[in-house]
């Protein structure tokens, strides 16, 4: 019943894909009929009722719309942790853990980029992974 270390567990199944260069991508859905992108991929398009949805890698960069540092977490969640809304370059808003130094919090509208990392530890002690965003390091 145990999940081997080589098979990562994701908080949201099927949302992380890897490109050829092994760079992670956040996978959403795009409606084949009307083109709207939604995360996570739905079974039906809420705009046009199209049921054909293609897997769509979403933009890996966006702007930090808002965030909060959560101190009062639900049971089983390590705290404090930062949670954010990120507005991706392709028009999709994502709720995501924010990977940032909690002593030096970023300003809103800071550019952020996708990373994949540990969200929390499940009851068996295994890591649960998810998409996260971190402030973009300016090229030096």
């Amino acid at each position, binding site marked *: 019943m145990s999940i081997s270390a080589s098979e990562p567990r994701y*908080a949201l199944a099927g949302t992380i894909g890897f490109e050829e260069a092994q760079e992670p991508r956040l996978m959403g859905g795009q409606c084949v009929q009307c083109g709207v*992108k939604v995360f*996570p991929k739905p079974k039906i398009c809420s705009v046009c009722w199209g049921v054909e949805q293609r897997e769509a890698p979403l933009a890996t960069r966006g702007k930090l719309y808002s965030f*909060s*540092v*959560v101190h009062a*977490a639900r049971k089983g969640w390590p705290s404090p942790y930062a949670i954010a809304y990120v*507005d991706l370059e392709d028009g999709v808003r994502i*709720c995501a853990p924010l990977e940032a130094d909690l002593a030096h919090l970023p300003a809103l509208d800071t550019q952020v980029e996708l990373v994949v990392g540990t969200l929390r530890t499940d009851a068996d002690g295994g890591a649960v992974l998810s998409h996260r965003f971190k402030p973009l390091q300016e090229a030096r």
Partner: protein
Amino acid sequence: MRKVAVIGAAMGRIGRYPELMFQDLGWPAVKGAIEDAGLERNDIEAVYCGSAYGGRLAGQRALRPLGMTGIPVVNCENACSSGATAFREAWHAIAAGRYDRVLVLGIDKLSMLGGGVLPGQPEDWEVDVGLTMPALYAMRARRYMHDFGLTREQLSRVSVKARRHGALNPYAQYQKPVTLEEVMAARPVADPFGLLHCCPTGDGAAALVLCAGELVAQSTIRPVWVAGAELTSGRFVTGFRDITTAEITARGAHEIYEETGVDPQDVDVAEVHDAFAIAELMYYEALGFCKKGEAIHLLESGATSLGGRIPVNMSGGLLSKGHPVGATGAAQIVEVIWQLRGQAGARQVEGAKVGLTHCTGGGIAGLDHGACAITIFKT
């Protein structure tokens, strides 16, 4: 549509009562409202019960100890708006001619869930990556502070105001005023919120008796008329949206002002859904009490305090009176009925003739909120 009046109102003090059974939390409010109306239990033709966490048959369980059985009981769940949804359905049932006298009960016992943050909605992906309800409002607050220059100290004045009025309300969970320093220094919950920027969880029940207009003359009590009761749900937006605007509330407010002909300037007293400090400010704007970005000036001017132009949350609001989720809408209505009858004691708004209640909530990814219910009353 027939005219409808509220002729009975009652509630118990909101608090944490883990030792009380759910049914024993509920029946005193029901009995109180029927006695307040000068009626007997057999006069009630149907019951609408709002509860968010009460489980199956919440209404029947609360009514059984009173022997109020064998009549239609409709149980309504709409998160924070459950009690107000029950009220709206009861009002409509009488207005449409189905019944003449109906009872509304709002009830929840959150102490059953233990303490701390309420459980998130299962299968909600935002919850699965760590979103909590305080964090959602904290994000609204942070964006609002960024966009409109609101400071954390100003935000804290909302809590000070709530607790100042709650101290005048014997039905409030918290009846002790707090200082600005205490609000600022309280332990962090979801930055920028500390504990006193967030409403407590609690247990409570509130009940109302509604009556068809043509039968009101038979009542001994001065009626308060239902001008309108509006219910709406959140719109699903797939892209970006401005979370500093309470879209569902603004839309609901627009609809009820149109429907009733009441202007926001006409409102003498209001109970709004201040589950978190930022919420009260956002709802001043969404309900048309002031322009966008100006809510803190309205509060700081004293306009929304006792003695001001538009007193808001004289009960102490959710921040001080408490928030037994499914009971809240009914408890807000009880407060406004008391205000319009001149029975609100030390927190009475002198000469109040038009009252408004507003509750909204229920987090669902992609929606402002699940539900929003707004009601307007006139003497």
